[in-house]
């Protein structure tokens, strides 16, 4: 009876202090994040709620804060996110599948490709904007249209989609595909019926991250010609604006009410993002499997 507490005591002095300090550090980390985010959210909601009404959703921007809405910007952002998903996910997943399932890693060009993709994820967004201006808007003569904006955002988030899709594909146990091969399945059958469905949850996570990054981008869009005042609803090959740009422009206005309007715009942006995330989470839970 006397020996046991002694052993516990000896362990506790050194290890418990260290353990306690570690735990404290973890609590501190999570508090920093939550307090900052919480402050931001409370501030935005407090300012934005009075301006969060149907006018904001259905009216074009205006010089008088009471009449100003963000309909073209909201639609522009939604259209762009839709196009982005249509373009970035197939291309990204395709690239990831090629690199994981087909590419021979002993070949130098495949390795070069991999290094390239990993580095592209770190390129500042403004550089993509310059590329878009030179190549899409002026080079291809696409003009300053919504499609050009969506394409540049696609390029911007493609590395994120590729890297996370590769992780997801790699996480599918080898035994699954080996089993399928053993039963006589072709590579196409293995990928389309076993690997890809099993990787969907991970791919969905990657797509959420990609969308979340793209929805807040302002700089590259400014370069490819997102305007600050557009009164009509956007079309794919027409001039456009996006919510982050509308918010930025409102914040820069001298009249105080525009800042409140900007807060309301931020809430709408958050709501759009949450709806999209909810969709991806639903998709993920539906396909989630355990081995």
């Amino acid at each position, binding site marked *: 009876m006397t020996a046991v507490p002694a052993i516990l005591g000896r362990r506790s002095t050194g290890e418990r202090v260290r353990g306690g300090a570690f735990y404290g550090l973890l609590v501190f980390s999570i508090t920093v994040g939550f307090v900052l985010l919480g402050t931001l959210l409370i501030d935005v909601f407090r300012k934005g709620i009075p301006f969060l009404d149907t006018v904001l959703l259905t009216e074009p921007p205006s010089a008088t804060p009471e009449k100003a809405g963000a309909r073209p910007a909201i639609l522009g952002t939604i259209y762009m996110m839709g196009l982005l998903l249509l373009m970035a996910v197939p291309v990204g997943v395709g690239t990831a599948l090629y690199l994981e399932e087909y590419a021979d890693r002993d070949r130098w060009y495949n390795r070069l490709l991999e290094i390239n993709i990993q580095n592209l994820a770190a390129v500042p967004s403004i550089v993509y904007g310059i590329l878009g201006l030179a190549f899409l808007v002026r080079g291809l003569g696409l003009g300053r249209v919504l499609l050009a904006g969506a394409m540049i955002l696609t390029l911007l988030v493609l590395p994120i989609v590729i890297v996370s899709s590769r992780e997801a594909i790699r996480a599918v146990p080898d035994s699954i595909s080996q089993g399928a091969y053993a039963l006589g399945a072709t590579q196409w059958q293995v990928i389309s019926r076993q690997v890809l469905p099993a990787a969907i949850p991970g791919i969905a996570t990657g797509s959420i991250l990609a969308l979340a990054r793209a929805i807040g981008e302002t700089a590259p869009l400014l370069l490819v010609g997102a305007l600050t005042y557009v009164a009509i609803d956007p079309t794919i090959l027409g001039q456009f604006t996006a919510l982050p740009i509308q918010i930025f422009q409102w914040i820069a*206005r001298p009249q105080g009410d525009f800042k409140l309007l900007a807060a309301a715009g931020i809430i709408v942006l958050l709501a759009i993002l949450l709806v999209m995330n909810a969709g991806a989470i639903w998709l993920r*839970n539906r396909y989630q499997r355990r081995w």
Partner: protein
Amino acid sequence: MGFRLTPRLVLLALLVTLVATLAAGCGRDDESDGANTAASETDTGGGGEELSGDIEADGSSTVGPLTTAAAELFREEQSGVNVTVGTSGTGGGFERFCAGETDISDASRPIKDDEEVPICEEKGVEYIEFEVAVDALTIAVNSENDWATCLTTEQLNAIWEPGSKIKNWKDVPGGDFPDESMSLAGPGTDSGTFDYFTDEINGEEGASRSDYTASEDDNVIVQAVAGEKGALGYFGYTYYEENQDTLKAVEVDSGDGCVAPSVETAQAGEYTPLARPLFVYVKKESLERPEVKEFMRFYLENLDTIAETAQFIPLTEEQTAEQMTKYDEAVGS
């Protein structure tokens, strides 16, 4: 796969979305009072011809809100005409304008003879310049600053000239100011406001000391001045007007006594040298299109209402008439 989002978290996300949507019912306080009256005051004129087409404007972010207000009011008359306004900055706007990409260029300074005019000429872009409003560049100090009520242009020059070492109010020549450290804030080099201020105060466009808080967003400059007792900054008059409770405007003496920035002094041309005209440049070729012609006529005829809606200092009646004459000559009626 690490952190999994359970159905409970999905529910939480949906709940937040729901709250956001529900809050949409709250509505804003005073629903479009002044705005409606402003719109109904606009002079319709010109008959009821239905026009259509796109008009592209880009340029100064200072003038942008004015052209936006014009576009907005114009829409109530000609809903088929789609006017878009970009705010790439005065320089960026001229770049696009001279490349023939836009119909209208907003500018907070005249087009540059040595840099921009040749490009326009080379591309065959001919244009007409219209004055649309006035701005009084305001020198502002903190509201607790009770010593600086008037500064001469020489003093401003001493403070802002390249290489200026003034870091304390007591070092301002001929000022007799207290020992209080001075911090400076102003617009960044891409701004037309910066170009104009440096040209007028330091005698050369772009020549300025560089150790100050520079921002393209005037609200940041307002914050910088409002947050420190010894601060001094400059920006457009509207930003002062909206922040009078935290800022104090300094009177400027250019040799004829101290003049405070105001609508009256700017209009009368007394607030020298910092009252500046704001411009709109229109491509002659575009002006031949009926929708552009009609939009510009609307813009100039309703300058007062538009300036009021967008909170700009309007031109005097005389000046407005001058611009109309210019327009009439251009369209050759």
